[in-house]
């Protein structure tokens, strides 16, 4: 073969192989996280809507259990402590977010003093909490109050530790 033939062959070979590609441009800015290999989804029938709803409800129930904590009070007082206020702020936010939540605000007192006055004190505490939550713009129909006075203690003891646990407002929610 003469030079002309080798050149043609070389060019032909190149045409078949193709030109080596230039390297791709360097990645921009911050390094990308390694891409996770996603499991390949099994082909499945149309998922029923209630699964998503059940999941959503589960998540909200969990948040309710977390957020609706008792609010505690000092002896003979119905004013909110800073901690009480922050508990109520979380409750207020959650109730605004999830309009289906209703709450019964239950006021209690420790056993010191008379049953009658403690019923009224429990009522006062429930009302204080109720008014605070209402100020978040939560509709009145979503909140109700009840007082148990000293009649439904959280702790049956007769010392300050027990009494502190009993001076409280608790919540019963529906969702």
């Amino acid at each position, binding site marked *: 073969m003469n030079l002309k033939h080798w050149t043609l062959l070389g060019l032909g070979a190149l045409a078949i192989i193709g030109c080596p590609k230039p390297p791709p441009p360097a990645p921009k800015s911050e390094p990308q996280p390694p891409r996770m290999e996603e499991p390949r989804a099994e082909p499945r029938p149309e998922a029923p809507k209630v699964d998503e709803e059940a999941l959503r409800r589960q998540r909200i129930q969990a948040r309710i259990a977390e957020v609706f904590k008792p609010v505690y009070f000092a002896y003979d007082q119905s004013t909110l402590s800073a901690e009480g206020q922050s508990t109520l702020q979380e409750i207020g936010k959650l109730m605004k977010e999830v309009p289906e939540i209703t709450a019964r605000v239950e006021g209690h007192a420790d056993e*010191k003093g*008379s*049953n*009658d006055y403690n*019923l*009224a004190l429990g009522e006062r505490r429930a009302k204080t909490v109720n008014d605070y939550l209402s100020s978040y713009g939560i509709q009145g129909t979503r909140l109700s109050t009840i007082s148990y006075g000293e009649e*439904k203690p959280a702790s049956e003891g007769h010392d300050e530790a027990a009494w502190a646990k009993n001076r409280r407002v608790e919540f019963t929610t529906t969702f």
Partner: protein
Amino acid sequence: MHDTSSRLPGQAAKPAVIFAGIPAAVRVLFMACAWLLPLSLLAPSPARAADVVITSENKGAETISLGFIDFKCAKGDANSIPFAPHAVIAGDLDFSGRFKVKSASQFDSTTKGAFKAEGALAYVRGEYALEGDNFNLSCELIDIDSQEKILGKKYSGKKADLRASAHKFSDELTYQLFGEKGIAQSRIVYVNKRGGNKEISVMDYDGANVVEVTKNKSINLMPAWIDGKNKVIYTSYAGGQPQFYLKDFESGKNGVLFTSKGMNTSPGWNKMDKEIVYASTMDGNTEIYRRVFPDGKAQRLTFSGSIETSPSWSPNGYEIVFISDRGGKPMVYVMDRDGANLRAITHEGDYYGSPTWSPKGDRIAFAAMDEGNNLNIMTISPDGKDPAKLTTQAGSNENPSWSPDGRHIVFMSTRTGNSEIFMMDADGKNQKRISFSGGNFMPKWSDY
């Protein structure tokens, strides 16, 4: 002090022992030292009698000595009933503080001597018969020397009513000798913890004959007698919010009395005007209201932003005593039945509760907190003077309630470690436990 010599209105004179040498038409007043009179004066006329009326200048100060012979069981098995009728009567007489009872098993010359040594002028004897489901009971008050019958009463009925008949005789005896009604047939309504729930029960004033009024497994509180011993009003959470329920013992019915917004608690009965006074949050805040029983319109009596609760009527229905914290701490206040003339009657101390007006009108009992945060029962005059402390260093003592004759107070005490019901004289003496099952509180003493 209170004059106990006057008759209750509408009562006829009753025959009693005549004293020779003193005209029959003249009512004889003799003090506790009557047994010092020469025995020759005590020759009763067989047919007629003059009145014997005791006056006492001080409540509970005057007593009569009486002999007491165990009753005979003339027929049937005495062991078939859980109590002896004479033990019930002797217990009533002893509790009343009006009598010094000297007991014996039979009357003979030795007994006669023993009775007279105690200063007794008369003795009680009787007998009963038990036939199947029925009883007959005969009780007599006999003059020691002449053996004349001063008083004789017969009762009969079902065995279940034997105890009540014994109590009836105690009252008839008290009225015969003192011209005043006895309290042996009175009852106590109270809250009783059963199976972890607060339920309402009633019992005889001596702790016997307990009857369950509620069984709703809810929280039931603050019972009060309505219309004598015929009805009981109470607050119950059975329907959700605390509202008033009424048990009618005559009809057997037990149900909602009325409902309102909020909660209704602390009822008090005014038998003069047939009204109830109570505390309610129907207008948002705990205030005092009044209604004609059973379903009159609510009349609001207090208008302060503070807590007003625990109302109780004066015996004439003109005034109401209650608790208010409008001054910063719960204190005892009095107002007219229309809410006017409202004033505090306690001024020192930190905490008062559950005031209740004596049926005699001259004292108000209430609970007052001491430095140890325990409550004690105190009494005071309605104008806030002459305070008297009736319990001390005995746990927490709450919810006093007067006997219908104003001579005794029933209350709750935690002195035994659990809430139990206790009684004492109006001056704090003779404190006695009458409940034993634990978790008994908020007692209220019935009318006669």
